[in-house]
């Protein structure tokens, strides 16, 4: 945990980008809504899926950058304590991010009532985005391309290509348990991606110095 704290501290102002999005940009966007109307849960669902998953991979990718393309890399590899060092980092960062998301959703619950199906959906989507960033960065030994892919994916599939089978997002009100079918599939794909990344971490990382 100490190392994770210092790695986050090393990001300086960039570390505050996800909290800014979660605690300022997202709630204000939901409250602003279309002119002359009350905030709607449909809009909240759309904006939550647009903002939350796309910034989930922010901290992980900045930390992975140290492991891939900084002069620190050799020492991080030589002294790493386990072969799943990065995998456990990704899990810890996902948990931390979802904790912050939960705080925002407590506020949304005060506005819209039951919002926890939507919360489960964005938690699964966030895990997917972290898993995608993790596995791609290990395969490409680079974090810039995964960062671009991350934002491009969110923008394209949330705003333009809505009905593609590759789309992890859902347009709807998340009012019943049936709306969790797609997020459950997304979570399963995220687990597969994480395991692929874990295998890549074990096999490729050391040999690719």
């Amino acid at each position, binding site marked *: 945990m100490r190392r994770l704290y210092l790695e986050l501290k090393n*990001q300086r102002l960039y570390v505050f980008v996800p909290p800014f999005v979660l605690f300022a940009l997202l709630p204000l966007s939901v409250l602003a809504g279309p002119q002359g109307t009350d905030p709607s849960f449909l809009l909240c669902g759309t904006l939550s899926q647009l903002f939350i998953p796309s910034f989930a991979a922010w901290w992980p990718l900045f930390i992975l950058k140290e492991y891939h393309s900084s002069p620190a890399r*050799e*020492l991080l590899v030589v002294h790493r304590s386990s072969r799943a060092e990065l995998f456990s980092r990704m899990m810890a960062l996902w948990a931390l991010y979802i904790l912050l998301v939960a705080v925002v959703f407590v506020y949304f619950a005060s506005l819209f009532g039951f919002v926890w199906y939507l919360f489960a959906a964005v938690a699964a989507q966030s895990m997917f985005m972290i898993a995608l960033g993790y596995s791609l960065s290990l395969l490409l030994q680079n974090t810039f391309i995964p960062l671009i892919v991350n934002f491009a994916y969110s923008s394209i599939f949330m705003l333009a290509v809505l009905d593609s089978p590759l789309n992890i997002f859902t347009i709807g009100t998340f009012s019943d348990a049936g709306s969790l079918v797609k997020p459950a599939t997304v979570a399963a794909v995220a687990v597969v991606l994480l395991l692929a990344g874990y295998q890549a971490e074990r096999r490729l990382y050391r040999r690719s*110095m």
Partner: protein
Amino acid sequence: MIAVRDLSKRFGRKEVLHSISLSLGNGCYGLLGANGAGKTTLIRCMAGLFEPQKGEVLYANRPIHKLKGFQRDLGYLPQVFGMLPELTLYEMMDYMCSLKGIPRSQCAGEIAKALEFVNLEERAGERVRTLSGGMVRRAGIAQAILGDPKVLLLDEPTAGLDPSERARFRNGVRELKRDRTVLLSTHIVEDVDACCDNVIVIHGGRILFSGPSDELREVAVRRAGHKGEKPTLEDGYLSLTQGIA
């Protein structure tokens, strides 16, 4: 303590190290060689960064990849060092303590000792990013000696150091080498002359010489017919490598 047995390393079709065998006990060993001779590759193999195609690195007679505790006994300074630049020097050292598995209760003492060794204790609160190149190099040496490692692999440790810091480093290595193995890779022969009792000369991925420093000086006398003053280590090194393509 640490040994290399019949080690070969290839990158694609290019064989960088050819069947290298070495055995290093306590003391300071200077690894000398021209640019591209294979010094850094050899050190990286010894640190466990590279998996060799053939041969192995042994620590306490066991292959390092099978030894979980090897990393704790290892201090490593890479050729390029620059870590977590937005942290203060103290925080960076704290990070390294954690990375090396040094108990939290010992970290403050270890960091103070290491920073004193490289004369950076007064810079502990400054960001790594704001330190000069020479200071970052010294910080690299400090992180390598954290936790009192039994094996120190230092790749170009004095590159970028000013003369007084180089002298300080040499004195420090004389202290360190008493009860541990120090391998100092460099192309600065004076550093090896000042600190090391043993020299390894590598050329084209092959070991040309491995033995006491005095023996390398004698090579100058035997091969080049050195006359006059006592030959230096550089004379020995040059007479050994001259004429080899």
